[in-house]
């Protein structure tokens, strides 16, 4: 596709619109084992928590990227939620079970930005579970690759 300066500008405006709209809307629903009401978090809520940044390669992109987000163990700790297994669900209904031990063993984050730019819903945003794949040989395995849930929308802890 040929991008003229005008169409590029239009694209940028269009891309920025939903992000601005999403900031005040809850993007992640977290359900604990024995909590009645699920926690609904906005991007702002997540950005308010301590951020972790690291660079890693992914299996669906070339080169490495810098991801910034919240450590999953910090988030669950913050919400005071405990359990053995986490079921992560994406906007497209992709469902994956992740053992809680992953979050203890590795610095797994819920990333909200890649290379300094906010993740978008039209790409892999707004939230993406990212493993520090390059830091651990063990994580370079397809059994870990499928736990990288993008367009994450819900977490259930059992």
């Amino acid at each position, binding site marked *: 596709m040929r991008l003229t300066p005008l169409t590029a500008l239009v694209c940028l405006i269009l891309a920025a619109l939903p992000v601005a709209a999403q900031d005040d809307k809850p993007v992640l629903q977290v359900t604990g084992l024995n909590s009645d009401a699920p926690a609904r978090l906005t991007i702002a809520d997540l950005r308010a928590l301590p951020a972790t940044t690291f660079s890693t390669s992914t*299996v*669906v992109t*070339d080169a490495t990227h810098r991801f910034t987000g919240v450590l999953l163990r910090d988030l669950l700790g913050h919400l005071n939620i405990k359990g053995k297994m986490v079921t992560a669900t994406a906007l497209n209904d992709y469902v994956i079970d992740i053992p809680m031990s992953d979050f203890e063993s590795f610095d797994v984050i819920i990333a909200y930005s890649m290379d300094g730019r906010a993740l978008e819903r*039209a790409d*892999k945003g707004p939230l993406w579970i990212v493993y520090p794949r390059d830091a651990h040989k063990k994580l370079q395995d397809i059994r870990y690759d499928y736990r990288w849930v993008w367009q994450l929308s819900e977490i259930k802890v059992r």
Partner: protein
Amino acid sequence: MRRLCGSRIRLILPVIAILIFAVLLGFALIRMFKVEADIKVDAEQNMLWVMHQSESATRRLVETTLRAELGEADAEEIALRLDLLRSRFALLQDGPQRRFITEIGLHQRLSELHATLQEIQPLPKAFTAADVRQLRQTLTPFAAFFVRAANMTMVREWDNLGGRLETSRDQLRQIIVSLIGIMVTGTVLTVTLFLSLRLSRQRNAMLHRERDFSSLLVASSGEGILAVDDARRCTIWNPAMSNMMGQTAEQTIGRELSEIAGFFDVAQVRQAITAALGGKINSLALQPYFRDAHAPPLHVDLRVSPMRNDEQVVGAIIFIHDASDRHMARQKDAEIRGRLEHLVAERTRELDDALTRERSAADLYRNFAGMISHQFRTPLAVADSALQRLIRRGPRADANETAERAAVARNAIAGLTRLVESTLDAVRLQAGQASAKRIACNLMQVLEVLGTQLRATSPDIRIDVHHAEAVDAVALCDPAHAEQVLENLLSNALKFADLDTNVSARVHHDDKHVHCDISNAGPTIDDADRDRLFEPNFRGRNSVGTQGTGIGLFIARSLARMQGGEIRLLSDDARTTFRMTLPRFGDTKG
């Protein structure tokens, strides 16, 4: 030859087996690494799932538009589904997904659809049915594209998988063949090892037997055997060594040789051991070994040989044989030979003496007439002079004077008689029997008698007779001959002496001889005359103008030699000295 071939095969076979083993092992390892790398499955090989999700996102969007037409879905839900489809395109346009799409040849079509998707505007909140229908129509080619893409993906992935499985199977097959090879070579090696072990055990046993036999030989040898390592420490010491040196094997093994006995530190022995350690065999004969300071030494023969291990000298072995008996026999031989030689020399000397005496006697006999004329002159003159005086005195002479002068004449005549008898006896008796006449004779007395006789003929002569203190003047000789010799020498001395000087006679002795030196102060004898002085009828240059026959010194020497003696002219510039030497009587007694 067969044995050599066998051992070579025994060596070559394991080497080949090990080589094959290593090659096969390396090959199998390489193959296994390859298989291990191939087995790794990347998520990029999960394209079928990507295509399925993409198709699913498309169909969900279409479904949402249908529901929107029925009023069951709002604009926000449509926007969500649209974003999800857009995210799928973002994924397909990125990294490995894009490469795969290119590989199956759909990238052109994908780009076209992506452009179409980008042009779609989000629906306003109050959208119409026509807007939704328009959107659905725009999306019509998307689902068909993903169905086709999924189809192609499946075919490509199965092709790839089939190819990879085939490659892996080939590699596994090669690994299996290699492992079988490894097993075979391992078996060969095991068998070789087993055979080598058995052989080694057999050889060990043989070696043990041989060593035991050697030990037995060393232990039972009558010869002393010891061995040293290259640091000269004792390693073998057999019982014969213990007997010889008085030290047991326990005391000596492990110690340095120089500590064991000083004998091994003697330069020759040490050099022999050094040479052996340098690879040379050598031997020493009859080395004295002092076992005890007070006892006579043993005499031993040594043979020192190097001990080698694979051409390298690791020590020396020393064989020591007690050769004292041989040494003693050799010494006894030497003693006997010495005694014989001494005896022969003695006999030779005696025979030489006898020969000299015989020759002198023979010379004298040949010159008997000359001697008579020479020797008789003086006694005849003495007798004549005594008788003349007696006649001149006539009746005036009293009885005493007559008796005295007659006695002088008779003495002279008696001397002549003795000389004749002795000379005839000596000449008659010849060699070997000449000594029969030799008796003890005091030369001092002879000199005194002569002095008296000479003064009787010429009263003004002066003769000083001296002798060394405690001199033994007794010679073994014929007194008549000794008297003649001294009379000759004294007459000569007086004849050639300067006026108013004394003639001296001095008697002294050494171990075997008595010497009588007669000397005067007078004209010296020319060097040229000295050698010929004792020849018969020779007269020196300085005797010109004096009376003489030139036979006196010849007779004197002949007579002296007949006694086993000698006459010599001593060299002295101031005085002329003739020395008569005769055997000591005391020496023969002893």
